């Protein structure tokens, strides 16, 4: 079946002075997905997003939106929540949302209904005629979110949408994102919080130093990278595992260990060690590794490779 692609990023490069922010990035996003753009700080997530939005132009490569090359008309397809939030502090809430709605070419009477709808949903309806500066930070975050979605955009791009939110707003936003996705909207968001990405995304793209390390459906990624991961918990000291050489990735504490076995090593061999030593196990689980683990290991691997290149 032909994949219905909302966005294609094809071999995009972008430099700022001597710094190569994007070094040949390629990935694609299917319509109706929740797509997680992951990477450590400074990996190039925001630059990638800005390139997709046409805020900055790539030095080379191409962005396609709905199969077409980017043009300024496409701006109105997107709803964008930038990482660094900002609103006109002196404007009234209603006027502000109205302005951003109209900025997207949304002029009909429906816009006013939409504004009321969203303000009610965010429990801010009584603040409609208040100035932004009179609102608390949490309320301003909600307004910023309303601005992002007010024009009913097909593609919603959220740069670190959960950073700086209190738990209540976090849950609210998550719920709204899922609702919007249920309505068929494509959601793209960036984060460095892997646990979150794991729960929310259909597909992920992991970037580091301007390069794509991993890209694909979440399940496929886990399957590919996720063999032979083991979690052990015990009341006894199991830190002796550090002396063994079975693991490619380890995270061992006194009573807890999480590790990936080297190729060819079977989980049963590890279990044997515990029985030989008479260790009381509380938990022994073979599992898909967490995204965090995949992330850390592939970033490390990439760094090792980069150093290797330098040494040669």
């Amino acid at each position, binding site marked *: 079946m032909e994949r219905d692609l909302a966005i294609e990023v094809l071999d995009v490069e972008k430099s700022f002075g001597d710094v190569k922010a994007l070094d040949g990035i390629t990935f694609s996003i299917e319509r109706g997905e929740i797509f997680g753009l992951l990477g450590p700080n400074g990996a190039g997530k925001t630059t990638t997003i800005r390139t997709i939005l046409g805020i900055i132009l790539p030095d080379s490569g191409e962005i396609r939106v709905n199969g077409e090359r980017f043009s300024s008309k496409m701006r109105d397809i997107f709803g964008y929540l930038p990482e660094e939030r900002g609103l*006109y*502090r002196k404007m009234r809430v209603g006027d502000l949302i109205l*302005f951003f709605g109209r900025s997207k070419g949304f002029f009909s009477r429906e816009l006013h209904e939409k504004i009321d709808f969203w303000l009610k949903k965010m429990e801010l309806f009584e603040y409609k005629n208040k100035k932004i500066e009179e609102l608390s930070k949490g309320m301003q975050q909600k307004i910023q979110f309303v601005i992002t979605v007010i024009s009913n955009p097909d593609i919603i791009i959220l740069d670190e949408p959960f950073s700086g939110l209190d738990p209540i707003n976090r849950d609210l936003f998550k719920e709204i994102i899922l609702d919007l996705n249920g309505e068929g909207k494509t959601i793209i968001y960036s984060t460095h919080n892997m646990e979150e990405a794991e729960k929310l995304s259909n597909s992920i793209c992991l970037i580091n130093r301007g390069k794509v390390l991993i890209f694909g459906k979440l399940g496929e990624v886990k399957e590919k990278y996720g063999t032979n991961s083991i979690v052990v918990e015990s009341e006894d000291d199991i830190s002796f595992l550090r002396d063994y050489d079975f693991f490619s990735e380890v995270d061992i504490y006194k009573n807890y260990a999480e590790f990936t076995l080297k190729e060819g090593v079977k989980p049963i061999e590890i279990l044997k060690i515990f029985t030989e030593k008479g260790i009381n196990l509380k938990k022994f689980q073979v599992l898909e590794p967490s995204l965090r683990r995949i992330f850390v290991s592939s970033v490390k691997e990439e760094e090792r490779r980069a150093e290797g290149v330098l040494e040669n």
Partner: protein
Amino acid sequence: MFWKIREVLRREYIERVRKKSFWISTFVLPLLFLLFTFLPLFLGTVSGPKVYKIGIVDEDGYVKEKLTSEKKGDKGKLRFFLTDKSEISKLKKDVLNKKITGYIVIPHEFESKGISFYTLNTNNVKLIKSIAEKFREFAVSKRLKKMNLNLTSDEMKKIIEGVKVETFKVKKKGKAEKSNFGISFLVVFSFIFILYMILIMYGAISMRGVIEEKSSRIMEVLLSMYSPFELMMGKLLGIGFVGLTQIVVYMIFAGIIGFFAAVQAVLILPQIAEVFKNFNFSIFIYYIVFFLLGYFMYTSMFLGIGSLCSTEEDAQNIQAPVVFLIVIPFVSTIYLIQNPDSLVSVIFSFIPFFSPMVMFMRIATTSPPFWQVLLSIVITALFTIFSVKLSAKIFRIGVLMYGKRPSFKEIFRWMRE
């Protein structure tokens, strides 16, 4: 693209016109200006006693004699009454009790020594002037009498009457018109001063707007919706309309003053009325044309500068050159106003930056040939387009830059791109 510009324009206009500071500078300031300039004039004519009672202590004797002989026909506001030296303490008391306005002590040979006027309010210039006039008459007639020329009071008046100097403004078309240099200088000056103020003020306002959007990070949301060019044009036009609104309001105020002054010309402000009679409507049109040219030229530069800065402190340093480009033409215009047709004035009226103020000044004070006016407008307009384009290039890159301000070398590279 045009509706995008319109949306930015609309927001800029509405938000700024709603601000208190706009209302104050547009309506309250001119009202205060009116109040402070015209109220004293107005009060001066309306109030004050009908007649001034003034005691005369004459040690010379001539004035006494003169006053008793001509008493019947005296109609002026000055009511002299004769008294003598022994009454001075009583006169003093009367002055303090406001029974009389004051008293005059006339020494022997007052025509060379002068007289002394004792009163409560020594600032009443009008009264003092009319006393001086009256005593000039007395002095002249006394001097003539010494030369054995005995004249009646009417003959006296004819002899000492001065000659009025009327000034006429020579125009290309039609007859020479009466003008009044002192006042028209003042009016042209205030027109140019307002132009200067507005250019500086709106330049600073628009620059601050961009910096605010950058520092509040709202810029990024805007850039996901607008191209930098749309954003800059929207701002330029939106804030420009605010300025235009203000100027139109000022002109309406000026019109109202002109109207009332014309109606009450004889009563209160004959000179002002005359000035407004001389200003024809085209001056206002030219004013708006040169305001717009100057506005777009300077404000686009301020927007470009604003886009380079992340904080207001950054802007303070970098904006100085542009501020100079407004201040220097303003100061030059004030000098050139005395010589609007000198070669320097003519040349300056074709140089962008100078042209808006200098050319307008020339139009308002003399009648420059129409081709000069047109040439000045065309040159300035072309330069303004150039300035807007250049600023747009800087703006496009500047708005996304944070932190370190780019070097002039970098800015220069963007301009060439």
